């Protein structure tokens, strides 16, 4: 029954099926399951979408989710959320759902593997220059690396990599430790206390999804804010 033994800290090592060099491990399988759940849920909710006065409860729920995410983006970036919501919203929904399904027995959250979180963090790493160049132009994006003084150039470049590492390890560490703590407590105090830890895990999972998304948005927004402020200073 137990897919992940207590001595294994990453679900990458558990290989379900192998043909030649193609390996299907637990992380990939549960990533697919999460993706399928999200897709089917969205399809069911938007199948009979209506702009009239009567609409289904699922449409109401999804509208509330989208409205909350775009409100947060508007607060952080101080601009319209239209071009960010596809990327930021997908990050949030994927992480939140895979942390939320952690409570189901037999489900291994794909975010408890360092390869998934590193993949998401690398997406953020590339999204920052893509959005920055699209908004600012190539040269003025590069210029912000020399911002306070050109002496800070190596530190700014180093910070770009370390914050990607921090983003990946933070999500991985939290979710992995949560699944491990639940398993260890199950061995020590079997009946009641693990339930409380599961409830705490639900809270931690949601907070970590929120934090990952907000940090990604802050990184993207901070690459643009420098150029915007400079333009405003020039206009004065």
């Amino acid at each position, binding site marked *: 029954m137990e897919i992940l033994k*207590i*001595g*294994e*800290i*990453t679900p990458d090592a558990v290989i379900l099926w192998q043909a030649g060099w193609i390996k299907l491990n637990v992380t990939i399988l549960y990533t697919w399951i999460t993706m399928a759940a999200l897709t089917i849920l969205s399809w069911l909710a938007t199948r009979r979408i209506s702009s009239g006065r009567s609409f289904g409860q699922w449409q109401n729920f999804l509208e509330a989710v989208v409205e909350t995410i775009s409100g*947060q983006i508007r*607060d952080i970036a101080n601009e319209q959320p239209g071009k960010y919501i596809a990327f930021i919203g997908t990050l949030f929904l994927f992480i939140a759902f895979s942390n939320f399904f952690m409570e189901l027995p037999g489900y291994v959250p794909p975010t408890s593997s360092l390869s998934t979180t590193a993949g998401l963090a690398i997406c953020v790493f590339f999204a920052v220059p893509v959005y920055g160049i699209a908004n600012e132009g190539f040269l003025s994006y590069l210029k912000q690396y020399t911002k306070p003084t050109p002496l800070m150039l190596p530190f700014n470049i180093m910070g770009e990599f370390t914050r990607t590492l*921090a983003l990946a*390890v*933070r999500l*991985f*560490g*939290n979710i*992995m*430790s949560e699944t*491990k703590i639940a398993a260890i407590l199950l061995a020590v105090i079997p009946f009641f206390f693990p339930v409380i830890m599961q409830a705490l895990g639900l809270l931690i999972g949601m*907070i*970590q999804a*929120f*934090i990952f998304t*907000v*940090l990604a948005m*802050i990184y993207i927004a901070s690459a643009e804010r420098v150029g915007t402020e400079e333009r405003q200073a020039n206009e004065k």
Partner: protein
Amino acid sequence: MDSATLIGMVSIFTAGITMGIGSIGSALGEGRAVAQAMTAISQQPDESGTISRTLFVGLAIIESVAIYCLVVSMILLFANPFWSHFTTR
């Protein structure tokens, strides 16, 4: 004492010490951050949304040092590379 025993002993001890020393700094920092945020919310209850969002992001960044220590001690306890090198030989 052979080398496997020595590695096991040192790994368990280091895992405990890593967690213990590594969490001091972020525990103090998080306590201070939450106390300041509580003061700020009690002075300006209208801004509680912005304050708590900034608080959560700040807490995550403060906490990440402790999470690194946790990951290191988890690796030492559950997936120790030196231990498996000596036991699978």
